[in-house]
């Protein structure tokens, strides 16, 4: 969906229109879910639901354009994720347990990877091994499609700190053994370019 359509959907959703909200959800839910998968792991689905619930409640009082909406939405997601980690810590469980996808090997053959969500899951698990500030910076830049300033707003950091965290994250990823191993069998048939979260 084009940004202009999404802007119209945002206006409609703020007025209480279901279809407008649905359009926003379809456009941003994948990115929210993937960001949260990196931040809270298996709890991502629940935390994403909480995020959208809060967005639904507060949307009427939100005042801004689509760009600000992105920042606003990911701020909610981030805070819900922080709440969830706090809950987990209180339950004395290890919040950094990466967890293995139940329905597939950790490093599946690259030929099958592009066919379903396994490739995406694999990529998220790799990004999840980064230190949190680097992982968040990479996800918000690459998956949420935010620029440096917007990412800084979501994370509550200065732009310079975000730039450095993202660059360090990329360096680590470039040298990650799984990434390199996968690259060995990687043919440049390429996955479709995924600039925005279009369906």
């Amino acid at each position, binding site marked *: 969906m084009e940004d202009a359509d999404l802007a119209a959907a945002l206006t409609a*959703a703020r007025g*209480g229109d*279901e279809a407008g*909200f*649905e359009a926003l*959800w*379809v456009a941003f*839910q*994948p990115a929210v*879910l*993937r960001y949260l998968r990196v931040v809270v792991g298996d709890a991502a689905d629940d935390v*994403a*639901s909480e995020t*959208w*619930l809060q967005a*639904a*409640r507060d949307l*009427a009082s939100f005042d801004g354009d689509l760009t600000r909406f992105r920042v606003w939405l990911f701020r909610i997601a981030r805070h819900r994720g922080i709440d969830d980690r706090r809950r987990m810590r209180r339950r004395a469980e290890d919040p950094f347990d990466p967890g293995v996808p139940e329905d597939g090997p950790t490093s599946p053959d690259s030929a099958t*990877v592009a066919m*379903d*969500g396994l*490739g*995406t899951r*694999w*990529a*998220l698990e*790799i*990004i999840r091994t980064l230190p949190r500030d680097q992982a968040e910076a*990479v996800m918000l*830049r*690459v*998956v949420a*499609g935010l*620029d440096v300033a917007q990412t800084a707003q979501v994370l509550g950091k200065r732009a310079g700190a975000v*730039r450095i965290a*993202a*660059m360090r994250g*990329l*360096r680590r*990823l*470039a*040298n990650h053994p799984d*990434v*390199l*191993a*996968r*690259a*060995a*069998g*990687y043919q*440049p048939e*390429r*996955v*479709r*370019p*995924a*600039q925005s*979260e*279009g*369906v």
Partner: protein
Amino acid sequence: MRPFAALTRAMIAARARRIGRREAEALLSRASGGPDRAQLVHLLDLAARPALREELAGREAAVAAFVRARSEVTAAPPRRRMRAWLSRALVVKAVAGLTVLLVGGVAVAAGTGQLPAGVQHGAHDLLNPLGVPVPDADSSAPAHPASPRPRTTPSPKNSAPGADPALPALCQVWEAGQKHARGKDLDPALVARLAAAAGGTDQIAAFCTAVLAPPAATPTPEAPATPEPTDKHPRPDHSKPRPSHTPHRLTA
């Protein structure tokens, strides 16, 4: 090319050239990725792929939650709730203030005996039990000597039953009210009147038991000894006709 050789070459290449600021920005904004960053670009492509069907499975539930949340928000926005609460508090205060003013004014007017007869009598009935001396509408009425006297000597045994001919009927109403809703529905004026006759609200039950007890069954010497001139004979047997007294006693 064997995979192992490719892996080694890739690792060497990656180590050889670190990602700098400019290249990092190009990769992050998905603008470009050099051919030697194919692995990293592939990873980022996978992470930023278009929506997967499994990721959109909760669509209907999300919309339903939105509708629910919006209906809750529009049903009772906090500001409007606060305003309603404020206005209700104001109304309560205004009504309470008006009541105090009105009752106070009536009490003052009643104290001087300057109200119309009906109102004056009502004020008398209402305020006398509360300890406010209010003259009755007609101070020369025959009821006057009968009613105030026994109230000053509230012994249920001898004085009360004969003090006020309406008392048995009032007691019947009172007892019926006790059975029905624990006295909550009772007219406060009636309760006050009974309390005055009995010597206190907590005495009413015992008082009314004594009033309603048929003296014919227990011909104690007290019954004839009651010095009331108004009624002695009809009491024992005519507990039924007696309510006919009540209307004019209560409303006169």
